[in-house]
């Protein structure tokens, strides 16, 4: 027993030393060791499969779906993942792990798993979650396009002209504001990178004011009386109220803005 405690104490001290002395090389130019890479990759695949199991796959053969997927892929995915004969953008080549070519993914992965990754993203990889940026239909369109892309020659990929189908207005709020959904959305709009927000893990940098107690604050941005309705308006277009505000317009949907406002109202 004593020996076990001793070993535990030494390991904890060793781990603390590695952290405090900065011994771990965090650089993107230092790839994981092969066994570490394998372990992370394997854990990621099983994690995705487990979550993909519950997803029902719609009909992915429809031509207009594939066409819209092509346009969305070129607008949102190609920078990092490249395409047939097209390299990823320079910044993407500098990422570790490197974004994978999806022509391979299209052959090796189940569509429901690809959909899940597009929707939820993958922590610590640079793969973002698109669920607050695209509708389910749009994400399925991307998934539907991948096998078509994998069957294209580079010439075919390059010559295909794809135009985005205008968004159906899924951006109008359809559901009652929900603080729990807002709490999740706060993470997905990176609010915590500029504001300290109680209970939200992240940088909590003091770029803008801290949001502790914002539910009982009287004014928003110094210009707008605080109410959940005004908060939602402010979040969607700060410049409409404070033209010179450094707070960017983050492209929130009406629903997301109302959900976030409902969450912020709980911070008394």
């Amino acid at each position, binding site marked *: 027993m004593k020996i076990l405690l001793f070993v535990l104490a030494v390991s904890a001290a060793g781990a603390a030393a590695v952290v405090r002395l900065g011994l771990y090389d965090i650089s993107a130019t230092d790839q994981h060791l092969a066994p570490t890479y394998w372990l992370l990759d394997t854990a990621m695949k099983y994690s995705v499969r487990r979550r993909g199991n519950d997803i029902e796959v719609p009909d992915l053969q429809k031509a207009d779906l594939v066409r819209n997927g092509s346009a969305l892929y070129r607008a949102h995915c190609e920078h990092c993942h490249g395409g047939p004969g097209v390299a990823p953008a320079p910044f993407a080549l500098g990422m570790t792990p490197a974004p994978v070519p999806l022509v391979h993914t299209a052959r090796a992965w189940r569509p429901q798993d690809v959909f899940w990754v597009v929707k939820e993203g993958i922590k610590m990889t640079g793969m973002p979650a698109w669920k607050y940026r695209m509708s389910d239909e749009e994400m399925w369109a991307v998934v539907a396009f991948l096998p078509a892309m994998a069957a294209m020659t580079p010439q075919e990929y390059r010559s295909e002209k794809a135009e985005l189908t205008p968004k159906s207005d899924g951006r109008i709020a359809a559901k009652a504001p929900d603080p729990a959904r807002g709490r999740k959305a706060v993470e997905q709009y990176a609010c915590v990178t*500029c504001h300290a927000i109680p209970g939200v893990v992240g940088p909590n*940098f*003091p*770029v*803008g*004011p*801290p949001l*502790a*107690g914002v539910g*009982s*604050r*009287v*004014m928003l*941005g*110094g*210009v707008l009386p605080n109410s959940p309705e005004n908060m939602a308006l402010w979040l969607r277009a*700060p410049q409409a*109220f*404070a*033209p*010179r*505000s*450094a*707070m960017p317009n983050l492209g929130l949907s009406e629903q997301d803005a109302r959900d976030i406002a409902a969450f912020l109202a709980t911070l008394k």
Partner: protein
Amino acid sequence: MRLALLFLVLIAGCSKDPAVENGRLLLRQFGCGACHEIPGVAAADGRVGPPLTAIASRVYLGGTVPNSPENMARFIRRPQDFVPRTAMPDLGVTEAHARDMVAYLYTLK
């Protein structure tokens, strides 16, 4: 020896900077605490505007202007110059007063 003495006097002066103490007093006298929470200022627990906790580390003032002692003094004196529709009133703070207020607020890191 004389130099060392001067040094000691300066150090002693720093520990209780008169500008800082005057600033603390002024923040009270101008009623800043009615609208802002300000650590170390008596009864400053207002909730109209944002709290001034750690205001020295804040990147933007009023959401619009990069934080620096100079900009903060200007903002205190004429908030409308930076945020035209702001609810923060122009309290007629003099330049010297603003400077001392900033001296205190910059101790809030």
